[in-house]
């Protein structure tokens, strides 16, 4: 066990930090946010070129042989600047889904171009009403000869409008909530029967609903085996949660230090407001919360390779709860300590709060994860 970064990890962190500093000021970010694509293809290519997408993947699929720790290091730095490129959605969630569910041949053919930034696969799995339960898949895949006809609506497809292809989960057998019977299909965005309902999220990212209107999927479109996608989706989501937590640590840590600087410069009653103890203590509580979120993130990273997937998912739930709570507090108080400027669209601090909101909403809200852990406790009555 080692908490400090090794030399390579420090280099990775420095590389992301330097790049972000140069390319992602708040005004640069605004330009990207308002561009037609909502993200920069040039930046995405650079991120791939610098190896950030490949960092956490094994060499046989075009990765650099690191672990999710490397992805977490990248995400924390991206979080500081509220980077809009779909690192979490494509670089972690979709790539991990392919890595966990795909056959060896699919991993070898689909992952390398994704990690090189040449293709943008996006996972379309969530559905309204799931309440954080991954096995809740109503979208159906009805057999049609050797193929399937897909019908249903996928929600919260973050980065969907940027996608080259969708990884669509659909039920080939069983009922919603059944762990068995969910199959993953890879379909190009131009595939007949795929209808996007694009929108902008409140934190400035692009997303869509994906309507499957009799989209025909052939056996060649199937990722992995039939009916057994859920365990791989669980593994991918646990990793995504760990990386999401690391991003949130970056989001809230930067919110804290931006607030600290404001407390030192903003003057009221003839003095810098940072001289008031009530604000000092609030800032101290924010610092404590950031440290707690960091520790919770370390913990889930430490449990990602647990032999028991339930233990892994418990750790992911625990981190999601802790980080959500800390991030909400820190980013909320960052607005509060800034006063009215904090609620303006033109100033950066409120955007940290917005990003934190999105991070709380996706991959299962804290309350949904809490229900899981509470269920464990009730079941383990001594």
């Amino acid at each position: 066990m080692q908490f400090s970064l090794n030399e390579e990890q420090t280099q990775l962190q420095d590389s992301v930090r330097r790049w972000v500093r140069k390319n992602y000021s708040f005004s640069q970010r605004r330009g990207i946010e308002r561009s037609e694509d909502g993200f920069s293809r040039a930046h995405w290519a650079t991120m791939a070129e610098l190896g950030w997408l490949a960092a956490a993947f094994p060499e046989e699929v075009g990765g650099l042989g690191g672990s999710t720790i490397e992805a977490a290091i990248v995400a924390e730095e991206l979080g500081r600047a509220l980077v809009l490129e779909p690192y979490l959605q494509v670089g972690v969630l979709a790539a991990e889904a392919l890595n966990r569910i795909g056959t060896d041949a699919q991993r070898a053919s689909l992952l390398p171009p994704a990690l090189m930034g040449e293709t943008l696969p996006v996972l379309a799995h969530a559905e309204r009403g799931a309440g954080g339960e991954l096995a809740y898949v109503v979208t159906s895949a009805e057999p049609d000869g050797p193929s399937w006809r897909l019908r249903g609506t996928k929600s919260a497809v973050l980065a969907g409008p940027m996608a080259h292809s969708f990884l669509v989960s659909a039920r080939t057998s069983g009922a919603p909530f059944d762990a068995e019977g969910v199959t993953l299909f890879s379909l190009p965005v131009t595939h007949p029967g795929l209808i996007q309902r694009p929108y902008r999220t409140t934190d400035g990212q692009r997303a869509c609903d994906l309507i499957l209107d009799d989209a025909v999927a052939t056996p060649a479109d199937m990722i992995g085996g039939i009916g057994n996608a859920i365990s791989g989706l669980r593994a991918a989501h646990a990793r995504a949660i760990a990386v999401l937590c690391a991003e949130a640590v970056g989001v809230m840590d930067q919110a804290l230090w931006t607030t600290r600087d404001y407390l030192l410069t903003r003057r009221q009653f003839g003095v810098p407001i940072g001289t008031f103890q009530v604000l000092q203590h609030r800032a101290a509580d924010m610092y404590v919360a950031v440290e707690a979120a960091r520790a919770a993130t370390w913990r889930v990273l430490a449990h990602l390779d647990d032999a028991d997937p339930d233990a892994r998912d418990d750790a992911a739930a625990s981190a999601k709860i802790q980080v959500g709570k800390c991030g909400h507090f820190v980013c909320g108080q960052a607005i509060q300590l800034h006063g009215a400027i904090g609620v303006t669209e033109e100033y950066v601090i409120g955007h940290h709060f917005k990003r934190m909101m999105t991070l709380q909403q996706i991959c299962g809200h804290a309350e949904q994860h809490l229900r899981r852990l509470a269920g464990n406790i009730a079941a383990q009555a001594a």
Partner: protein
Amino acid sequence: MDFERDPADDAFREEVRGFIAEHLPGELAARTKLGYHPLKADTQYWTAILHERSWSVPHWPAAYGGPGFTPLQRHIFEEECFLAGAPALSTQGPFLVGPVIYSYGTQAQKDRYLPGIRSGAEFWGQGFSEPNAGSDLVSLRTRAVRDGDHYIVNGQKTWSSEANLADQVFFLARTDTEAKPQKGISFFLIDANAPGLTVRPIISLDEGHSLNEMYFDNVRVPVENLVGEEGRGWSYAKFLLENERAFSAEVPRNKRYFERLRHIASHELARGTPIIRDPRFSARMAELQVELETLEFLTLSALYETREQPSTRPVGSVLKIRGSELQQRLLEMTAEALGDNALPFYPEPWIDGANACPPGPEYARGVVGELYFRRATTIYGGSNEIQRNIISKQILGL
């Protein structure tokens, strides 16, 4: 950064568990788990057993008789001891004054005092706070005036933990009234039975006795009992308090509290079913579990930080705030789970007298008393408000 597990750590856990199972009497474990102030005899009994195995000062460097545990081993060791119901080591000697003596003391002081701390033979009491010097400790007024080979000490100390059990006392006194307040303080050791030193009990909210007042009335302290340099006592005290904070997260104790909560909530009924099955209750327990899991990794990171590179940040303040608040919340939930069984005053079972056997299950006995006593955790070692001052000044630069 890597979090790979070493199978040697699992083997170590088994070794510790086996040792405890073999050496910790069940009756002693049961008594400890009730949650009262530990009896000196119990602490000494267990410390002596650990001493034979060279495990009695798990956090000390090997050069001073520590076992040379890795940070994780130390954590595992303490956790196993707590969960098994072993009496906690005395705080004052092993955790507070011991490290000061081996870091700043003379060879003679190390030779004289460290063996007694390691074996548990000598207990220590603390003389830091004064009636008018609590959070503002640096304004303390107890005077030590040089007189030949001695210092003559006069003054009053308060909240002196375990001074009633102590064989030796460490304390701060002002040796220079002209210097800046921080520069005029020195750190001393004195025999608890020295003439002129009087210890009076302070009964805490739990009706227990671990706190004391100490009166120094012309107490003669030999000059060789000065620790380090005259006038540098404040920096030694800060070193000691930073150590105290690092331990005050008390993850192993918090884990024991959580297990006790689980046990009690599994047996206490609400509307006819164990309260642990109430969805709202179990969800609130889950929230505390999350806090505990977070605290454990905060603590581990601090343990590793001190080993690989000395901390540049007062991480102890973060641990102290979160650990102490969690203790209180765990105890409050436990009392809540007890329902009507939280009402009786349960005296320490080894004290005869009225109310010796109120109704209610055995597991209820120490809970509420501990809840009352542990209101002190957010106050001692520098109140949590002082910790927030430290964070805002030293880390945030406000």
